């Protein structure tokens, strides 16, 4: 990461999490990818919620993910829908499934030509405009 990329950029679409998702972004900032697990039924999920979407219990704790994941699908943007990312075309956005089960939207680092569905991925926490993001690399 170049120092320029780490600088705060006013155009960056920074997350504005509510209370349910705030612990997720705080943990990422500290270098950990976390997800929620229901203390009643064991279901695991992202993004942060106040109730378990399986058993509806209002009781969950945060767990740290192993960082192992697989690639569910990906796309490559050639059109800029937002001024910050319009200057970074082409870029890849992916659906990633953690080994623990939860799925999330992410970026896969590197050449998109080598990607294939269900390939193993490894977590790489990177800062974009000063915000810690959970990105992944093949491996």
């Amino acid at each position, binding site marked *: 990461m170049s120092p320029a990329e780490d600088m705060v950029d006013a155009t*960056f*679409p*920074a*997350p*504005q*999490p509510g209370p349910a*998702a705030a612990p997720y*972004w705080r943990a990422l900032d500290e270098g950990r990818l976390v997800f929620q697990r229901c203390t009643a039924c064991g279901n695991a999920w992202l*993004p942060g919620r106040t109730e378990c979407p399986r058993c509806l219990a209002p009781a969950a704790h945060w767990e740290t993910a192993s960082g192992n994941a697989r690639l*569910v*699908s*990906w*796309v*490559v*943007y*050639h*059109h800029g*829908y*937002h001024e*910050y*990312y319009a200057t*970074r075309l*082409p*870029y890849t*956005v992916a*659906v990633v499934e953690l080994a623990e089960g939860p*799925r*999330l*939207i*992410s*970026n896969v680092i590197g050449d*998109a030509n080598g990607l*294939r*569905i269900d390939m193993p991925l490894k977590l790489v926490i990177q800062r*974009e405009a000063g*915000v810690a*993001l959970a*990105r992944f690399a093949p491996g």
Partner: protein
Amino acid sequence: MRGNVIIAGIGHTAFGKLPGRSTVSLNIEACRNALADAGIEKDAVDALLVKPPTSNPQFMYGQSLAEAMGMQPRVGGAWDQGGAANISLIAFAAMAIEHGQCEIALVCYADNPRTGSRHAYEKAWGDDAAYGWFGVPAGYAMLARRHMEEFGTTSDQLGAIAVAIRRHGAANPAAQLRKPLTLAQYRESPWVVDPLRRDDCCLVSDGAAAVVLMSAQRAKALGVRKPVPILGFGQGQSSWDVGQRPDLTRTGAEISGATALKMAGLRPSDIDVAQIYDCFTITVLMTLEAYGFAAHGQGGPFCADGRLEIGGELPVNTAGGLLSETGMPGLQLVVEGVRQMRGEANLQVQDARTCIVSNQGGIMHTHSTLILGEAA
């Protein structure tokens, strides 16, 4: 209730750029045309059901429209389900008519994203915007990639869908885009979000459409010309965002189509013509699979070789669909279905007796199916 409720009238506005027109004004024009087509006075209508404008949702929109139309309907309001809402409202109206809640219903939709705001189609997906996750096309591209990688679906197979529908639109004098497309041109079409090209994506349009519903009995008493019977309908909601959905290649269209076909007492092979929501080419492919026209994963080969073109085995979107007639979400597909069942379509499918129509919304979050029969 198979066939007990009929579509008595259809109407629409011009499609494309309609600057300075409010969605209320567009809705009124479409309703005026639908009432004239049905030969019904406004005062006979006792239900007004409207899909809210996608680009500018407003609280109590159905009531604003009723006031502007000088109506105090028994049954009325708006239903938030994205593009699936048109058919869901038709189904709701049919059930309400069947059960004596109302007698004559207007179902309508209008939007003006072309000259108004298209923000709704380009917005960020919550905190995931930090990853550059923006816009409706990207969501469909994510489904398309998984389908292509899992089943070997090709870009050319998606292209064949665009070629078929653009051919139909080119023949429609009322279509917004009357430019046919060759597969060679499709291959040159620029990426928007890979694997989707510009020519995989629907138009952005201003416009409105409306339909009038009543019982078959009432239509007979009123002498309605060519009433088109509603044979079946169904719904299925995937509901979850693309990033959360357990299987990216299966959607609520499966249960929606199965429910509608069961109600109609028909199999996919009994369907003569289809109007399939084509916001993107991949949507057509996945919907035809979900309805059972092709096995799961086999939609690619099914859509190739001209099968979807007029004269083919299953002509799809015979007026040009969202890819070329108008990008307005969905009700114009019902209007074209009615024209086919009346035998009055611009590209009429010979001896067509059944038409299946799909409407859906979000990134295949919502789905609704309608099956129409030959006009009496």
